[in-house]
């Protein structure tokens, strides 16, 4: 029983390390392939598909996150007479943590899953082999445009997320919690600094790279038909989210200490 448990743990550790190594290798390959000029039409298509089409769901998520954050903070802050700080707190929480992380989580669910399902179904129907046979590197053709798109589009989505989250907070603060418009905006001016936003945007770039690389890696390693595509897609979303949360902790330590 104990031996079997240890064997299972050992197997999982080895397979985790093996997958980690393969992900690093795919990332390196993608960077190496940047020496060739990417197909910019393809990159733009991916930017629209992965970025622009995700805007409504990101904005909806962040609007309500900003609103609920303000409901909770305003209620407590008013009890202690600190209502003049609500705007600043909401803005800083949005800029540093909530906008980057929640945007990345939404994108991992929407875009990461789509990348894996698309590349995974290409893998099981031999389309990836067809690319190789036609002397086209699958990393250059499939991974690089998605990586560039995610790294460029996630910070842009992050900016929208910041703005709409803060606006959501403003609406609730002024219409529901009885905080004046001046007080909300003044506290943002008082407490927030530019690094609250730029740090968050750096995070979104890292998260974008994670979503793209994990999505592509899981897709390129899909096996066993339609069932394999489903399993790879789920694995892609779960792995991306775990890596986003872990890397967010270390990025926060690096950027805001």
């Amino acid at each position, binding site marked *: 029983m104990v031996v079997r448990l240890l064997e299972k743990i050992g197997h999982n550790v080895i397979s985790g390390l093996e997958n980690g190594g393969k992900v690093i290798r795919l990332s390196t390959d993608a960077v190496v392939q940047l020496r060739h000029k990417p197909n910019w039409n393809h990159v733009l298509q991916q930017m629209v598909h992965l970025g622009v089409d995700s805007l409504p769901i990101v904005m909806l998520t962040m609007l309500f996150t900003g609103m609920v954050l303000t409901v909770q903070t305003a209620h407590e802050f008013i009890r202690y007479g600190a209502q003049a700080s609500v705007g600043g707190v909401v803005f800083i929480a949005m800029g540093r943590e909530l906008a980057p992380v929640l945007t990345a989580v939404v994108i991992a669910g929407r875009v990461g899953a789509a990348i894996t399902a698309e590349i995974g*179904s290409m893998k099981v*129907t031999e389309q990836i*082999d067809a690319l190789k046979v*036609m*002397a*086209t590197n699958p990393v250059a053709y499939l991974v690089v445009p998605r990586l560039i798109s995610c790294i460029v589009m996630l910070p842009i989505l992050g900016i929208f997320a910041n703005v709409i989250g803060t606006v959501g907070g403003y609406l609730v603060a002024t219409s529901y919690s009885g905080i004046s418009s001046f007080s909300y905006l003044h506290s943002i001016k008082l407490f927030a600094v530019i690094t609250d936003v730029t740090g968050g945007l750096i995070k979104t770039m890292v998260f974008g790279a994670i979503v793209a690389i994990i999505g592509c890696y899981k897709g390129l390693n899909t096996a066993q038909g339609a069932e394999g595509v489903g399993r790879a897609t789920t694995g892609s979303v779960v792995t991306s989210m775990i890596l986003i949360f872990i890397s967010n902790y270390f990025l926060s330590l690096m950027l805001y200490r």
Partner: protein
Amino acid sequence: MINLKNVSISFNGKPVIKDINLDVEQGETMVIIGPSGSGKSTLIRLMIGLIKPDGGEVWIDGQEISQVNEDKLNDLRRSMGMVFQYSALFDSMTVGENVAFGLRQHTKMNDQEIARVVRRKLKMVGLSGQENKMPNELSGGMKKRVSLARATALNPRIILYDEPTAGLDPLMSATISRLISSTRRILKVTSVVVTHDMASAFWVADRIAMIYDGQIIACGTVSEIKESSDQLVQKFINGMSSPGQAAKRRAKI
């Protein structure tokens, strides 16, 4: 043109190809036959560098491909084409875009020149005017023909066919066999065809190699194979299997 020297490969410790030697001459059509799971498709994937052998050498056009890097392999692949068992058409692209793919990736042709080549290749496989259809609107036979048009778009010197008639009715199988022969005649290509469709094999082959349990057990011209004294070869080409237990019991009674 294509030379396999003592090639072996195993998957998960199970040997699939065992010390195979095979030479395909320039302009020749070599058909590889054998039962399912005997290693035919693995052999063809070795020839185009999709997998690397555990041992031995794979020579294509005077270059040993199992040791070269991806860039050199891609240079070589530009002179090769492959028709996949399930066609492997890019399902997000139209028929025309599929055929044009290699031209867009590897040539400096403008849109008009590419469209002209696409029209010519589709006409060659009897699919004129189908450029704007999506792969999911095509029948199995049409997909195979588009796959052939795509494989010939860059005028390759070698074409590999993986089960080109699998899953097709006899009439469509005959059409595909005729296309393989005419492609060879028009483009003067060297062809390797993996199949277990004997009618197609006898139609297109200059020589036939039979692979059984990872080894080549017979290789020769069509007439040599037809007259082979090897029992396995005769059973395979005549579609006979060993009698099952039920047949043996009935024979005893």
